[in-house]
């Protein structure tokens, strides 16, 4: 598809959530943004608005951003009710003003979910994702102890599927899009990626139990199969991975309940 390539400038009104700090009340404030190039990115538009605010002596709008090419997962607003705004398979930093029309009112809010408290304006605290990863999002391999990479062949189909899951950028749009604030897509993506490799088998049960357990304890909700997560995901990660994780979780719980364990597992050598 060759999209509209017109260069006619546009003007919009931003309706932005302003909140001075975590425990402060917030409110929407309107700001005009005039004569914008349609080739400008949404975040570049915010830069321009912020420069104007600074020049006027007002505090600029705090928003999270870094790579501005859709891979670091830092940017995180909800635009017109949709995490990462209009368009499918893009992050906020990849939204361009050509997606809007002259005269539009654009509503910009932080990601809203109880486990992601607001820090300031559009910036939220997503450290809960790190905590889930710390509980089990890894394959234990000490540097220097790995066998030759080609000594463990992995079927191409499995590697490709693992890559689909591994594309997750950890932005949290799946949580913000879900009415239950579920982190199932995020967790399922990592569980599936590592579970698809032979290298990931020894810790497969432990991993899924630990990650899901941590996810639950941090206040994320459950999946009720609406798939808003996949629809909002900037990497369009499939909700099929959630089903895959549920199977893993069930099997792991079952095995965990009946598996004989050595009394010395984890003991000193």
């Amino acid at each position: 598809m060759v999209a509209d390539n017109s260069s006619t400038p546009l003007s919009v009104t931003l309706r932005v959530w302003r909140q001075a700090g975590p425990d402060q009340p917030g409110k929407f404030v309107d700001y005009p943004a005039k004569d914008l190039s349609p080739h400008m990115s949404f975040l570049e538009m915010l830069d321009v608005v912020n420069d104007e605010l600074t020049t006027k002596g007002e505090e600029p709008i705090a928003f999270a951003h870094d790579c501005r090419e859709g891979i670091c997962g830092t940017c995180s607003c909800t635009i017109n009710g949709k995490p990462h705004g209009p368009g499918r398979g893009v992050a906020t930093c990849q939204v361009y003003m050509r997606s809007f029309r002259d005269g539009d009112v654009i509503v910009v809010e932080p990601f809203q979910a109880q486990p992601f408290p607001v820090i300031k304006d559009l910036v939220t605290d997503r450290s809960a994702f790190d905590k889930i990863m710390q509980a089990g999002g890894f394959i234990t391999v000490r540097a220097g102890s790995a066998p030759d990479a080609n000594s463990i062949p992995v079927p191409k189909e499995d590697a490709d599927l693992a890559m689909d899951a591994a594309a997750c950028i950890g932005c949290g749009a799946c949580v913000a899009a879900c009415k239950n604030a579920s982190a199932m897509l995020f967790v399922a993506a990592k569980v599936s990626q590592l579970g698809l490799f032979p290298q990931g088998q020894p810790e497969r049960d432990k991993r899924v139990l630990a990650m899901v357990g941590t996810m639950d304890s941090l206040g994320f909700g459950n999946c009720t199969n609406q798939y808003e997560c996949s629809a909002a995901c900037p990497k369009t990660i499939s909700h099929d991975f959630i089903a895959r994780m549920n199977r893993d979780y069930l099997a792991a719980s079952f095995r965990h309940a009946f598996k004989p364990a050595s009394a010395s597992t984890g003991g000193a050598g």
Partner: protein
Amino acid sequence: MAKLESKVPSGPLADKWRKHKAEIKLVNPANKRKYDIIVVGAGLAGSSAAATLAELGYKVKSFVFHDSPRRAHSIAAQGGINAAKNYQNDGDSVHRLFYDTLKGGDYRSREANVHRLAEVSVNIIDQCAAQGVPFAREYGGLLANRSFGGAQVSRTFYARGQTGQQLLLGAYSALSRMVGAGAVELHTNSEMLDLVLVDGHAKGIIVRDLITGEIQRHAADAVILATGGYGNVFNLSTYARGSNASAIWRAYKRGACLANPCYTQIHPTCIPVSGDYQSKLTLMSESLRNDGRIWVPKKKEDRLKEPGAIAEVDRDYYLERMYPAFGNLCPRDIASRAAKRVCDEGRGVGETGLGVYLDFADAIRRLGENGVRERYGNLFDIYREITAESAYQVPMRIYPAVHYTMGGLWVDYNLMSNIPGLFVLGEANFSDHGANRLGASALMQGLADGYFVIPYTIGDYLASHKPGSRPSPDAPEFMAAEAGVRALNARLLANKTGVPVDHFHKRLGKIMWEHCGMARNAASLRKALQEIPKLREEFWATVKVPGSGATLNQSLERAGRVADFIELGELLCLDALTREESCGGHFREEHQFPDGECKRDDENFAFVSAWEFQGEGKAPLLNKEPLNYEFVKMSVRNYK
């Protein structure tokens, strides 16, 4: 005068690293937990170092200004990672990778460091595959490779167009495991604002918590900086907006030498600039040069025609014409300068005339649209999002952009700077890429440093310092450094009215790009050296930072970083002016062959320029580390 001892071990090139590992001092396992190590930065080098040192038993404190270690800009590397595995049976070897990297760097890197890099490259792939990094594979289940610039073998491992992301997430997983195990204390949203020296040794850092504004003092037995490159000194670059040089710059001001700052890499294939509001440039991976063909019209008057309307005979596939042996896969510095040259001749395409075509029509004919999509689909998607054009139908328009900095803090063979106890890894150091980095070598170096070099070499330093000898964070040196940071922030916040930070960054970027970009000359550099101090003065007099330092304040963060970039930019230009030769990414117009290629001067410039801070307002001191090539003969690079 700084003492610059490279500490390269003696003996045959291929035995140096093995011998060094066998001879350097060790810390016994029970003592390791008594040493605290600070690691600043959590990209490939920082995350892999923090995880590995914690695995060994050291107590690690990891600091990152991002809200999570996974956001570090290594995440954005697209193309791949080199390793001398020779899985393709195409004649690769450690020696060849070493030689290609050294030659690619235009003979301005340290021989022994580069050889070690090539040696450990094979271990990196093993490590990452074991971690579950989803590398591309062949149908038989074994790892796939592709080709990158500056090499005639296929040695690049990749994970679609997201290799950096996958390698970083592997290192992040390893780091997360150690955080979960309590072996790493993770400080996110924490920006290092000063290095603390006690008795001449690096013993801690001053940090600002970016959320609460709290200024903290952290002490340790050694400090590792893995904070990336300084390419944002050009404002527009492929770096992330937050990428900054403050950690290395403030270490420089504490006495660490900054080496070869003028070696900056301009990547040939980026999406051209479209307007003044632009905040960043986006890379189109070098891997595209495997199948895309670069051209411009032969005749100036064709430059605004639809590309499809320009007949084959009227196109100039200039890289294939000028460098038939390497063609579109010649090294980055060469491809960038060639693009500049054809645009300077008035044959550049697009509205601005600053663009060349990267055309996939032949590849689509050969592989089919789906074949091309399978290889580069995500890159074509990125291109469409930014330009609203489909590269399946019309050629991409590309132009060079700042992408990487080969210069950085000076380090010895152990990756220790001239400040004892201060180690520098990854892009933040200067050591392995010389004057030009080859594609797919940055990921290799970051992980080599973190997984396989620092775990050995840091022990050599720590072993000569008694466990428990680290100073208290309440020592006078820490209090003084904290007071300095507070004073600097107060100064940044002082102006009540004025100009936003961004304006200064944009102006600095323009000065740098115009006078110290792809081509440099003495007159132009002298002009930059007049303009930058003026800009600096104006910055302090008129910069407006709203809000307070006691909360999240993104303007304050940026102001501190831009203040440092202005100073670093000046040193960069001074280095470029002093280096009276052309080599790799540093092209001095006065020093070129008649065909426009770099003219190196090995007789007078075969050294590392290590700049030493002499105090505010004083000219920095130039220290020289001679580059002694024992095993390879320096020669003129030839890719023809």
